[in-house]
């Protein structure tokens, strides 16, 4: 399998979600380029998380193949082991743990079952905290920090894991405006560091702001992907989100306007 310049390759996978749900992925192929940010966009319940869990290898497609490219070698996803970081949307947070402890858990792939974290692990944690400007949080408990700070700490765990591919479920949507900007600039920073990021959102504007590529899950469960500007056009979005939309430009930035139906 040729990796070219891709981080993750999905080849003609089929997946269906139980019997009650009629969610289905039919013959999906796509590739996630290295050092890029991709957005998975769709309405709530459209299967964004499912797609992310397939990329993680947690869910297994009925047929087709998903593979990871590490150091130029192709690796089927079933044999990946700690190379992909996953940050779920409603993660159950052990509130009583300190930020340092939580970050250290990102080092699990490197620490044997019956051993303890060593100096290198602690060093990496310090480095991660510096990068994300959360040094001051180290000894604080997870239950005592804000939502935006928690988001940065979780990103920190993904960095400690030294994963090249980070799958991030709804990282931005539920934050306040100030934290939103912080996370967006951190994600861009991560890309510069050589990370590949896939995140989900139901807000196309987030994709416009940072995503190089977009993966759009349409209403009839088709999945289309490509460069963001190309994929997220007026027609696709209006059809996909079920509301007539129009683009506008305010001070050079794209904005979305819901067309009034009068």
């Amino acid at each position, binding site marked *: 399998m040729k990796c070219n310049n891709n981080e993750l390759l999905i080849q003609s996978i089929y997946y269906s979600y139980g019997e009650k749900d009629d969610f289905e992925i039919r013959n999906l192929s796509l590739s996630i380029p290295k050092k890029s940010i991709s957005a998975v966009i769709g309405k709530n319940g459209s299967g964004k998380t499912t797609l992310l869990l397939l990329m993680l290898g947690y869910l297994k497609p009925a047929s087709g193949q998903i593979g990871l490219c590490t150091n130029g070698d192709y690796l089927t996803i079933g044999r990946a082991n700690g190379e992909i970081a996953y940050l779920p949307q409603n993660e159950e947070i052990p509130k009583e743990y300190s930020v340092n402890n939580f970050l250290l858990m990102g080092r*699990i792939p490197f620490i044997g079952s019956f051993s303890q974290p060593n100096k290198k692990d602690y060093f990496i944690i310090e480095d991660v905290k510096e990068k994300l400007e959360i040094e001051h949080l180290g000894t604080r408990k997870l239950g005592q920090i804000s939502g935006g700070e928690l988001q940065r700490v979780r990103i920190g765990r993904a960095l400690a894991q030294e994963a090249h591919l980070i799958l991030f479920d709804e990282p931005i949507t539920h934050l306040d405006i100030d934290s939103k900007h912080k996370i967006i600039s951190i994600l861009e920073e991560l890309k510069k560091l050589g990370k590949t990021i896939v995140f989900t959102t139901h807000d196309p504007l987030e994709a416009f702001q940072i995503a190089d590529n977009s993966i759009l899950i349409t209403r009839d469960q088709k999945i289309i992907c490509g460069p963001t500007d190309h994929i997220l056009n007026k027609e696709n979005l209006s059809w996909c989100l079920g509301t007539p939309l129009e683009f506008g430009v305010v001070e050079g930035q794209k904005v979305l306007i819901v067309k009034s139906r009068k």
Partner: protein
Amino acid sequence: MIRGLTKIYILGLFILLVISLFVGRYPIPDQINELFSNELFLNLIIRVRIPRIIFGTLVGFGLASSGMIMQSIFKNPLAEPGILGVNQAAGFGASLGILVFGNSYFMVQILAFLFGIISITLTIFLSNNINKRERLSLVLAGISVSALFSAGLGIIKYMADPLDQLPSIVFWMLGSLSNSNWTYLLQILPIIITCLLLLYFYRWRLNVFSLDKEVLFSLGLRNDLELMIILMISVLLTTSIISLSGIIGWVGLIIPNIARVITGQNTKYSLPISMILGGMFVLVSDNFARALLPGEIPLGVITAFLGAVIFIILLLTKKEIL
């Protein structure tokens, strides 16, 4: 800071160990030089008290660490061998062993372990079918499984020879360290020490079970294998102890909770503290059992009394347990 704290607790344990040597109904010789010349006293110390104190410490270490393991794995501060049905099941298995195989300690041990595994499997299966996310479902499942094996125990008691087997089953059900002579102790010592060491070295890793399943998957724990192995080790530890000491309750429930109050949630620190506190708790309880009344009080009665009192205090002051 916590490391210094651990040292203090270890010191406390050692002092307690020495004190425990001299607690009992046999009078301590008046003069110091008589301590070593009184042959009867020396014999008592070497043949009876030392193995008993060693075993008592290990009982505490083992039960408390099993409790800590189960509470971490199930993310539930009420999980412990007793509540999950392991104690009663091991009790059932061991009594069955006494009934069928008489004095074969080996078979008693095997059956205790076997039924311990059966009970925890049953409890997990039941709780998953009630409601995975709900804390209470694990407890309810455990109580049900526990009740099943209690009933089984009742039948065994009914069938046991009232003169020979019944008293030993009953006494053993209440828990006691009085069986701990060197012969028995050396038989299970290797198992207990191995299990304890494995769990001790696992102390940091135990933290991972506080994370979500999908996150664990991404961190390379791709299935439940490791969880199952650790759980089996703690069941083996618990049932090995129970097969010699009988059912000693409450240690696994309260000690880990106290340890977490002292050190915080990080199991790297709370597991060792839990072990030490467990050892101290059982030693103190056994000292009461030996010395409080002219006859020996079953240890399980003392740990139940002290444990319940401490648990009530914990419930009233630390609401997060529920």
